[in-house]
Structures are given as structure tokens and as C-alpha cells.
């Protein structure tokens, strides 16, 4: 059994490995899986920042970070911020806020966030 697992680990794709690593991390940190986030309720979730969209429009700059926990994707939207040091692709973060929906996207507006090393 153990050998089989090890073999699987050898052959699995980096994507699968990263995903299971993320899931493990989120479960250990006691985060709500993104796939189970309910709308209009406060939620504490997190994962890895996949991409950061910087919208430097005059007046209302904003920053949108796409966070993925291996089970789903959520977008954290920070209004009034052009850039946030540390919210960069590849970083793991914990975010807490009220979930909303825009199109097919689940959003957290101005969540509190915690950067993980």
C-alpha cells in the first residue's frame, strides 16, 4: 500500500501534487473550502494566489487577487488600493470577509487578509 502511494507520488502531475498539497494546507489551517463558501455570509478561507489583477484607473484603483485552494477559486477585491505588497502570485493567504457573486465569480470585498510565509 505504502509503495503504491509512493509510486503514485512519483508519477502524478505537478498540478495534482500542488492541488493535494493545497488541500492539505487548507484543512490543517481550518479554512472553509472555497467550493463550500456560502454567499452573503462571513467566511474564513484561503489558498494560493494564482494571479493578481491591478486596475490602476484614476480615482478608484483596485486590486483583485484570484485565490485557489485546490477545490475552487475565489477573488479577493481590494478597493482603493493600487498595490499590496505581499499579495503576489504564488503566495499563500488567508482571507476573511463576506462572499458575494459577480457573474460566475465568487468575490470577497475588502477582506481582512493574512499573508503566510
Amino acid at each position: 500500500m505504502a509503495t503504491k502511494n509512493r509510486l503514485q507520488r512519483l508519477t502524478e502531475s505537478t498540478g495534482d501534487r500542488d492541488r493535494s498539497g493545497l488541500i492539505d494546507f487548507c484543512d490543517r489551517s481550518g479554512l472553509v473550502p472555497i467550493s463550500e463558501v456560502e454567499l452573503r455570509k462571513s467566511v474564513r478561507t484561503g489558498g494560493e494566489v494564482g494571479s493578481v489583477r491591478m486596475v490602476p484607473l484614476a480615482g478608484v484603483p483596485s486590486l483583485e487577487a484570484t485565490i485557489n485552494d485546490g477545490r475552487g477559486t475565489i477573488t479577493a477585491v481590494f478597493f482603493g488600493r493600487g498595490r499590496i505588497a505581499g499579495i503576489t502570485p504564488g503566495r499563500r493567504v488567508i482571507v476573511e470577509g463576506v462572499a458575494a457573486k459577480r457573474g460566475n465569480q465568487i468575490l470577497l470585498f475588502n477582506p481582512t487578509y493574512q499573508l503566510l510565509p
Partner: protein
Amino acid sequence: MAILKRLLVGRPLATTEQEHQRIPKVIGLAVFSSDAISSTAYATEEILFVTAVGASSLMLGLATLIPIAIAVALLLAIVAFSYRQTIFAYPSGGGSYVVSRENLGENPSLVAAASLLVDYILTVAVSISAGVAAISSIPAFSDVAKHRVLVGIFLIVLITVANLRGIKESGRLFAAPTYLYIVMISALIIYGLVRAFILKDISNIPFDQKAFDGTLESGGTLGLFLILKGFSSGAVALTGVEAISNGVPAFKKPESKNAAATLVWMAVILGTLFMGISILAHHLQPYPSHDTTVLAQLGIQVFGQGAVFFVLQIATALILTLAANTAYADFPRLASIIAFDEYLPHQMRNRGDRLVFSNGVLILATAAIVLIVAFGGATTALIPLYAVGVFMSFTLSQAGMVRHHQKQREENWRRHAIMNGVGSVATLIVLVIVATTKFTSGAWVPLVLIPLIVLMFKSIRRHYLRVDRALEANLTAGMIRPRRNTVVVLVGNVHGGAVQALSYAKSLNPNYLVAVRLVEGDEEADEVQRIWLDAGFDIPLETVYSPYRELRKPLLEFLDRLDEQYENDNVTVIIPEFVVSHWWENILHNQSALRIKRWLLFRRGTMVTSVPYHID
């Protein structure tokens, strides 16, 4: 490159410059019969290669010459009469493909087409090999034999270039070699027979024990199989007989009548020359040899090694080259007809700069060169491959004519149908003989190749039909729907090239515009974000994580996410691309741009635009 092409091929011709020249019978005979008549240059020798070598006895082999010649002449008469009817029934040109397509249906017509294509290639390979042999048989040029393959390839390249230039197949220039050959062979036969039977001042060709593997006298055995196999070799003389029926429209009015008369003349000349050479050979006892052709041995014995012999050999080489040239007219034309029916790639029906079907010409040349190299330029090795295709197409075309008469029920249709029926059965019998007696010595090649080509035809056609169905659209104004346009600019380093791409993207006024940069980690992301903000660009920048420094997966995943966000939108991906002043500088740039274009081509609903940035 362009200059070289211009020099070799000449200036491009406008479509309107295409000429439709009509030719009189005298020219028509020379143009269309060079293929058929030229086969007399090697047919006798090929019979001997089978019967004399097979029986290990020259005498036994020689004895078969005249009976086989009679059988071939008979077959020739049957086929010629059959084809006369095709000429009248299809005045616009009735090749086997056309006749069998209209009367027998898809599969037979494809078999006919494949057979003909294979045979045209062999016509080139066989004629050129025999032509090279004619030259190397001149004692002064015997060194040519060592470079048979190279000389053959050189001749093919020469003919190919001439055909890419577009030579008028009706050119008077081409009439000369055919008539020169007819005159020279007639002189050889008449003078030879006069010397043999009236003057009685000619001796047999000295027998060379080293050159011929067998005895002079009878001794070996000659079974029916070998005789039939020898007959199969003689039957190659019929290749090219169908050429006139293909080219009826090229004749002066009345086309059919002139073409039919020319066909009869050709059959008479071909039959007479073949018979004459066989009788002369039977008398003078030449032996089949790879160094000196049978025809050259006869020439030396009758004329001596003087100027007349030289002219004979040159005329032989010329008519054989011309015979190869006829395939250059037929193959591309047939290929274009097949391509119009969508069984071959559409490229085959495009006329090139000089109004010739250049792609067909090039494919024919390549295939013929492959054959010459593969078979070492030896006519004898190629002959067993030949004739299968010809007789296959004869059989199908004559069978098609029988159906044609049944459908038309014109006056005397029964008699005409019987005539074509006899032709069809006779050529079918020959086909079976050729295929069985020569199967192991090479006839299996076309027998394997023809079905494969037919399968290829069908899969090409299937593809085109599928494309046609996929492109089928109900053309209404409502079909052009407004769609949202999302534009993604791929940014590497933020430099002049990226700025140009971003300005272009803005000018498209997309519903949503975003610049994308793949990053490996924090530092890179920080840096590019800072540059972006410092420059004060008012375009959103998305930094996408690429943990393994790869391009493809993060990019495609990003686009997937974008697709999910909006229904009914087109995503245009804009890639800045360098345009450098030297081609080799390209190696240093644009490698990822090229790759990205390739990946995105297969993604539905994604357009790729490359924005050039000129670097001088």
C-alpha cells in the same frame, strides 16, 4: 531564390495568356504517340530478358519473339478499335477516369485514376532509364552506364524545369524526334531485312558468353509461364495508346474524326515497327544485355558503328525523353481533374506562374526520381511494375464504354458494345497474366500501391466533405451577432514593443482590456507592478503565477477563467512580435510568440493578433 526561379521558370503568365492551340493530325501523331511508339525501343529486349534469360537459351528466347509480337499486335488492334469508339463517344477527352466515373461509379473510377497516376510515374521512370541505356549503348559513351542513375535524374530535372516553364505540348519542335525515330527504325528494319534476305551480306550478332548467362543453342526449357511472362513484357508496348483519347479536344476540327484517324495510324506504325524489330532480332540473334541494348546491337550490325548508328541512338534517346514528357502533360492534368472532384488536395488544381499544374509536375518528378534511384535506373527492373496500371485502366475504361453503349442505345449500339466488350475482356486477360506472371518480380508494387492510393483518395474526399458540412451556414443577417470583445495583451518585459501592442489593444475599444504577465514569484511581480504604476498606464495588469516557469498551462488556465466570466465573448490575445531585419535574427526572437500562436490556434473562440515591432 526568386531570381533563380525567374531564370529557370520564366516570368509569370496571366490567366488570360492561356492558349488553346489546335493541332493537325501530323503533329498530333507525333505528340500523342511518342509514348506508345517509343516502347518499341525496349519491348523486344524486355521479352528476351524474360524468355531467353529464363530458359537460359538465347535460341529458345528468340523463337518466342515473333509469336509474342503477333499476339501484341493483335491486342493492339483490339485496344485501338475499342479506343476509337471512346474518341467518338467522348470528344471532350475521355480518359479512363472520366469514362469509368460516368459509367461505372466511384470505386472503379478511383481504381482507374490510381492506376493511371502510378503508370504515368512509371512512364517517366521507364522511358528515362531506356533513354539513358540508348545513350550508353553508343560505344563512345559507354561510361554513361556507370552513372545511369545520375544521368537519369539529370534528364528528369531537365524535363521538369522545361515543363514548369510550360512548354506547349502541341509544339512543332516535338514532332521532329518522333518522326526521326520512325524513319530511323524503319530504315533499320528495311535495310536490315534487305541485307539479311536479299543481299545476304550480314552475319549474326557475335554471341558474348560473358554478357549472357546461358547458352546460344537450345538446351534449357521454356514453359508456358515464361512465354506468358515474356508476353507481359511485350504488352508494355501498349502503354500510351490511351493518350490520344485523352487529348481529343487538342485536334483540329472535326476533332473526333482526326483523333480517330491518328489513333489508327499510331497503332499501325507501332504494330509494324514492333513486328519488324522482332523479325530482325529473330534473324540477327541479339542477346539481352545491360551494357548494349538489343536495338543498339541491331543498329551496329546493320549500319556499322558510323554516323547512322549514332543518329539512331540519339533519335531513340530523344523519343524516349519525349515519351517521359507526355506523362508530364497527362499526370498533372489527370491529378487536377481528380482534385476538382475533391479526391486529391485542392493544391493539385492550382495553375502555377506559368499556367501549368506545377504541383502535379513536381510530384511526378519526385516520384519518378525515387523509382529511378530505387531500381538503379535499370529498365528491366522497372518493367514488371509497368503495364499493371495500364491494363487496369484499359479494362475499366472499356467496361465503362460497354455500359455507355447500353445506356445510350445509339445506332448499332450492340456492335459497339461488343467491340468494347472484347477490348475489355482482352485487356482483363492480359492484366491477369501480367499480375500473376510478374507478381513476384515487381507487379506486386502497383497491386499494393493502387488500393492504397484509392484509400487515400477516399479519405481526402471524406475530409473535404466534412469541411463542407462544417462550413455550411444559413446566411441571414441574424447570424452576425454582436459579441463582447475581451482583449488580452501578453506582456513580457515592459518595453517599446509592449507599448505598441497596448496602444493597438486600446484602439480596438474592447469591452474589457487586460494586460497579462506571467511571473515566477514575488520579486518579479513586485517589479513589474512597480514599473506599471510608475509609468501610469491606465490598463489593468494581471500578474499570473507560473510556479514552473512554463508559459502554456498558466496562460491557458487564465484564458479559461476569462471565458468563464463572460458568456458570449471573443477573446483576442495580442502578442507583441519583433520584426528583425535579417532572417537569422529571428532565431533569437519570437520563439515563445510562435509557440503561443500554435497553442491558441486550437482554442475555440480565441483570436490571436500579433503586433509587429520593427527593429532596424
